[in-house]
């Protein structure tokens, strides 16, 4: 009876009222009166605190053991000279433009950094191309030791190009149940960049690194630190970035090509449309059918707006305006989905309706492929800054080339990706108390590529100059970079070392050179009788009489017996002779139409590279002159056409030239010892800064030492 009385006193309204105050205090059974929503808030938050307490407790308890274990495993041999070493990479930032703008006072923070330490031109790799140069940065070796010679490699069995940096194999083991195939193993995804990146060596010495978006980190390295992968992370479809165009324009209409075209069909009314997005292949079912998502659009032609619905998201679209990231969930099997991120833009609402969809990025919160180390690092960043681009080459240059998007859209894309990157840098820098940090910004390279036609008078693509607003896009990008440098300078201490660098520069790409057409003309390459030379992927080539061919972006291969499937050139003296002959013929090759020299030199990679992988390199590397590059046709294995042709695409600047013409930049808050530093010098430098003797296999020399830090 006393309990009843007691209960009565505590019951009802009093409990409820008291609870409002109790909410911020201890949880009690009386929480009942708050109801589920708030109940969650209260209990949920206590659960969080509880879990973190446990986590923290376990971490703290385990800390001494872990520290001892790491000390035993990775004996630190000498004392670091610095607390933190920070690298900010601006992919493709050109030395000449930087120097001019610094002289004009447009880059005050670059100048400030140069005054505190130094500014140098940074020699780049042969070839001067992102995957090669950054791999040399990572490993401190020449390409002969890290195995990345180009974006592309060729399969000597088939002569087909393939991605040089990552191998993605199918899942070998599956369990078949009817039409269902349940994978029993992970697909074989391998990084083909060899040797050992400096962050792995730092980790072996107990030093933490945070490596954000350094190219050629897919799949990511495993080491003591965190890494967000970059080039060549594919999109969700497995390509290097395929945009989609949903359009009512008929298939046969000579519109733009490229990308993936999806037809929009009317859905009852004149302003209502629907389409089916074919997503990634579903490997759980026989025949790998693509996973589908329906898309509907209701257009208001008057105002040029539309409402689109896809994957549970409703979007208000305005012509020419990119949406924010939209999450797309593809159902694999019940209870399992893969997610991607895309940005959508209405491109026309008049007679025809078209909708642009950017390449579907792997969603970083629950990535479908390994894009970071540890695997939750991308989820962590996603929780911190929201959705972000994960695609290796995240900026959609293809859509701009095809004029599906315009200069403004591309600018928005690059700047937004740059913004995401800067947030990542901020977070990482803020949390790095000792160790190394690298963040690479890609926008400069992409902006150089796509807006060069604005700064090169008489460029064949200048006719495509559509918006004077972007005439100074390149300068604006460099000024933006200057801001990033300034903000970072303000955050670092005296005992930190800061490097700002680029992997190469940029120059004009006015004319393309079709090396295969040249080889055909010179008799080194022959066509199969009756074959159509406009076919891509060298399908028209008669291998039984062909001595040399060009695959990839940077060079040329000999058709060597025993190496190539249908090789005819003997690997010994004959190969040397053919190579010498071709090199001599290409040296100083003149563009008959303009009278300019197109190729300064064709380098023999046998003398250029040292190391165990040099056999995988092209036999000759082209040193194009300013204004020249491999032509679009040649890059896709088309033999037909003239040797030289105008480049009229928006992609109007490039750096696949004689590497001596496009050096990168190096700035440091300390004076570096070398007057002529090379990108391979940075890996031994960072090891030296942390008191580790540069590894024997490294080609570079340290740029800083104990003396230069004083």
């Amino acid at each position, binding site marked *: 009876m006393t309990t009843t009385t007691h209960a009565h006193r505590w019951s009802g309204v009093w409990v409820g009222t008291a609870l409002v105050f109790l909410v911020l205090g201890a949880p009690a059974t009386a929480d009942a009166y708050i109801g*589920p929503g708030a109940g969650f808030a209260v209990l949920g938050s206590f659960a969080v605190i509880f879990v973190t307490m446990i986590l*923290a407790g376990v971490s703290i308890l385990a800390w001494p053991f872990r520290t001892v274990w790491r000390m035993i495993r990775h004996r630190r041999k000498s004392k670091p000279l610095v607390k933190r070493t920070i690298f900010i990479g601006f992919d493709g930032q050109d030395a000449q433009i930087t120097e001019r703008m610094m002289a004009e006072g447009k880059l005050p923070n670059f100048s400030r950094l140069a005054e505190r330490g130094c500014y140098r031109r940074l020699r780049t790799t042969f070839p001067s191309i992102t995957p090669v140069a950054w791999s040399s940065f990572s490993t401190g070796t020449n390409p002969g030791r890290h195995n990345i010679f180009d974006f592309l490699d060729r399969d000597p069995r088939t002569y087909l190009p393939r991605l040089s940096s990552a191998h993605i194999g199918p899942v070998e083991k599956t369990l078949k149940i009817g039409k269902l195939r349940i994978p029993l193993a992970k697909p074989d995804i391998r990084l083909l960049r060899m040797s050992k990146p400096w962050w792995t060596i730092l980790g072996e010495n107990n030093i933490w690194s945070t490596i954000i978006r350094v190219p050629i980190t897919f799949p990511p390295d495993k080491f003591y630190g965190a890494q967000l992968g970059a080039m060549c992370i594919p999109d969700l479809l497995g390509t290097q970035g395929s945009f989609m165009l949903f359009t009512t324009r008929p298939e046969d209409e000579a519109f733009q090509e490229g990308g993936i075209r999806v037809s929009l069909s009317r859905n009852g009314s004149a302003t209502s449309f629907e389409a089916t997005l074919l997503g990634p292949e579903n490997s759980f079912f026989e025949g790998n059918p693509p996973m589908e998502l329906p898309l509907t659009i209701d257009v208001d032609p008057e105002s040029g707006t539309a409402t689109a619905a896809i994957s549970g998201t409703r979007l208000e679209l305005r012509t020419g305006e990119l949406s924010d990231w939209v999450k797309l969930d593809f159902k694999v099997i019940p209870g399992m989905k893969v997610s991607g991120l895309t940005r959508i833009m209405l491109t026309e609402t008049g007679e025809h309706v078209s909708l642009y969809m950017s390449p579907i990025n792997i969603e970083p919160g629950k990535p479908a492929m390994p894009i970071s180390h540890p695997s939750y690092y991308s989820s962590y960043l996603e929780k911190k800054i929201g959705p972000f681009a994960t695609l290796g080459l995240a900026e959609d240059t293809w859509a701009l080339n095809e004029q599906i998007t315009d200069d403004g859209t591309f600018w928005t894309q690059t700047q937004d990706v740059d913004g995401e990157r800067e947030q990542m840098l901020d977070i990482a820098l803020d949390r790095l108390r000792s160790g190394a940090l690298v963040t690479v910004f890609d926008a400069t390279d992409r902006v150089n590529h796509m807006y060069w036609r604005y700064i090169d008078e008489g460029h064949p693509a200048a006719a495509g100059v559509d918006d004077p607003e972007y005439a100074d896009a390149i300068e604006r990008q460099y000024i933006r970079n200057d801001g990033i440098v300034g903000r970072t300078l303000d955050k670092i201490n005296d005992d930190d070392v800061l490097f700002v660098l680029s992997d190469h520069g940029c120059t004009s790409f006015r004319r393309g050179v079709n090396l295969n057409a040249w080889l055909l003309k010179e008799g080194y390459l022959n066509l199969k009788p009756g074959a159509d030379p406009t076919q891509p992927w060298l399908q028209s080539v008669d291998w039984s009489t062909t001595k040399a061919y060009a695959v990839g972006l940077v060079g040329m291969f000999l058709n060597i017996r025993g190496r190539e499937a249908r090789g005819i050139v003997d690997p010994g003296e004959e190969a040397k002779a053919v190579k010498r002959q071709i090199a001599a013929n290409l040296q100083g090759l003149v563009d008959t139409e303009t009278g300019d020299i197109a190729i300064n030199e064709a380098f023999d990679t046998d003398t250029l590279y040292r190391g165990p992988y040099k056999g995988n390199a092209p036999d000759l590397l082209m040193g194009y002159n300013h204004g020249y590059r491999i032509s679009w046709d040649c890059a896709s294995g088309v033999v037909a056409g003239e040797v030289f042709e105008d480049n009229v695409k928006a992609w109007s600047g490039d750096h696949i030239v004689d590497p001596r013409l496009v050096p990168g930049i190096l700035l440091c808050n300390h004076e570096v010892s070398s007057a002529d530093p090379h990108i391979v010098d940075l890996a031994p430098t960072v090891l030296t800064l942390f008191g580790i003797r540069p590894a024997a296999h490294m080609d570079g020399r340290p740029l800083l030492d104990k003396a230069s830090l004083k």
Partner: protein
Amino acid sequence: MLGTVIDWLQAPLSGLPAMVGVIVWSIPVSVFALWVFGKTSNQDKITAVKNKIAASLFEIRLFNDDLRAIARAQWEITGHVLRYQGLALVPMVFILPPLVLLMVQLHMFYGFRGFAPGETALLRVELATTGGPRPDLAIEVPEGLHLETPAVWVPSLGELNWELAADAPGDYELGFTIGGTTATKTVSVTDRVVRLSPERPPSGFMDQLEWPSEPPFDRDAQIRRITIAYPEATMEIFGWSWEWSFAWMVVFFVLTMVFAFALKKPMGVEL
């Protein structure tokens, strides 16, 4: 009025075990609370703060070698959690009043059980005046009930107590006469889940809110309140009996949470 609606809704459940009734009630309550939570809370801010909490948890894992980083993440989590609770306060203001009203009503059904024939319970009449000799109060007990003991007078509390015994099932009304005025009090002898009235309250907002089953006494009446100590209800949970008048509330709370969790995705509400 709410009482009538509840009686009507509760009617089909009266023959069922209490557990079933609680389950049935918790579903619409979860839906309602979720809906209100979704409408009245700042969903974007809740998502943002939850992301921050998750990020800090990742940080503890990521930097598990760095005690300062762990401490910092822990500290940040505490801040985010406080903010999270702050964000839950607004919807609570909207959810709480109707829910309190409903739960007080339901407490009349699920907090206690009716007498069984042969059982006794304390009947207590609290008078407006205390002290002095035993007042002259006549009690009229209908057939089916009887008094086990004569009235016990507690002058300091102004209370008269009896042991009331039940003989047969039924809804009864006790009559009280004092100083020429009369008053009544319901008594239920039943094994069904029905509305009980453990107390006929004095006038006053809080008392009426707490004991809504019978009309309150007038402010100047000689009787302040009459209570009947019904036995506490028993919740049967997977064969386990839990006898406590608030047991149903705990079950109800857990169930509404479970349903809310299950329904938050379909209803698109971030909790």
